[in-house]
């Protein structure tokens, strides 16, 4: 199909150093939009826990105070939402999946992970895209506790995938032997979700 030029459209250009950090079809925001399919859950910290289960030798679970004692890292990353916005240099503090998996014996067949959250949200990520510093469970944003509408008390952050993979209100990781689709992945969104390949919807 001949490429359409939108008559009279020039677009808003960004400096090249910004432009090259924007994945295809994305635009820059400086605020922090909120997207979720339903209401924001508010889980009291004394009832919060984080669990690793599924195809593991023995499931593990941390209470909030226990989770706070785990070693953390602070990272500054760019994030891209499938609804088209990209935010540069977001600063998070949290516990890497590598740290969480120390002492967990994963069944060799457990190559896929389903992140699960308060409110029933789920999203699938292959294990090899969560380890080696690629994924972490964050509870601070910009040096402050993560607000509920942005996924607090804690959310998964997997910055190299569209942000729906960064499950808000996360409560655990479940190991699976198949790449089962999570919530949005069952509703027409891409099973993988790489913004640089523009994997927005299934079939992309």
């Amino acid at each position, binding site marked *: 199909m001949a490429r359409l030029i939108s008559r009279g459209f020039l677009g808003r250009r960004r400096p090249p150093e910004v432009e090259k950090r924007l994945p295809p*079809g994305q*635009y820059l925001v400086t605020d922090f939009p909120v997207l979720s399919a339903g209401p924001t859950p508010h889980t009291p910290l004394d009832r919060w826990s984080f669990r690793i289960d599924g195809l593991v030798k023995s499931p593990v679970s941390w209470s909030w105070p226990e989770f706070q004692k785990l070693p953390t890292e602070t990272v500054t990353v760019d994030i891209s939402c499938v609804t088209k916005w990209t935010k540069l240099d977001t600063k998070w503090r949290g516990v890497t999946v590598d740290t969480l998996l120390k002492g967990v014996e994963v069944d060799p067949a457990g190559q896929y992970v389903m992140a699960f959250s308060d409110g029933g949200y789920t999203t699938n990520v292959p294990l090899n895209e969560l380890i080696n510093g690629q994924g972490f469970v964050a509870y601070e944003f910009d040096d402050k506790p993560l607000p509920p509408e942005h996924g607090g008390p804690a959310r998964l952050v997997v910055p190299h995938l569209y942000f729906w993979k960064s499950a808000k209100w996360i409560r655990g990781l479940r190991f699976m032997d198949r790449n089962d689709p999570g919530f949005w992945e069952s509703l027409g969104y891409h099973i993988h979700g790489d913004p640089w390949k523009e994997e927005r919807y299934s079939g992309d």
Partner: protein
Amino acid sequence: MAALEWQLGTVTTIQPETPKTKSFYVALPKWAGHRPGQHIDLRLTAPDGYQTQRSYSIASPPELSGQLELTVDLIQDGEVSPYLHDVVMQGDQLELRGPVGGYFVWDVTVGGPLLLVGGGSGVVPLMAMLRHRAAQHSTIPARLLYSCRTPDDVIYRDELNQLAGSVAGLEVLITFTRQAPAGWTGYQRRIDAAMLNEVITPFGTSARTYVCGPTLLVESVANLLVGMGLPADRVHTERFGPTGS
């Protein structure tokens, strides 16, 4: 699943809805249908190949075949909405793909009672639901609670009046947050717990609710609905921005 292909549509009609909102009817020969509440992705391309995309809800019901209605609010310093408002003319082509979104959808097979809560342009996907309900001659009880700043800001005003007066089981309740029409006896404040309570009372906690609009409105309404005992999976939300922080 087959990929969602980009397709070219032709703008057939542009209709002002309010001083800052316009509807665009786009003829799409290859449109495969949608469910009320879904949206499309619009892609604009500049002569040098620069592209940007935005999402717009589909205002028309599935029953209107061969074309889609999109209703766009003008964001003064925006990249895309001023282009649509000030540059696009009848006969222009627009590139889009869809339908997108499988959760913020309602059709008569979902059932009711149906409570729709919208703020500003958040009424757009809710209108698709109401138009579909009317086209299906459905009698599922339905209420729309629509928050507007002033009488000038009521999108689809005439059609809402006409629907409310003519189809069975539908009530349209508008609340004006800045300025109400002279002699207005309805709500005149932001949506709060007392207002939601009144509106939802005939339906109780079995209502299926769809909340769409600016993030702050959606956050507060969704939290209130859950606080009133609605199961979270009956509260569907769509947040358009702006985002506040």
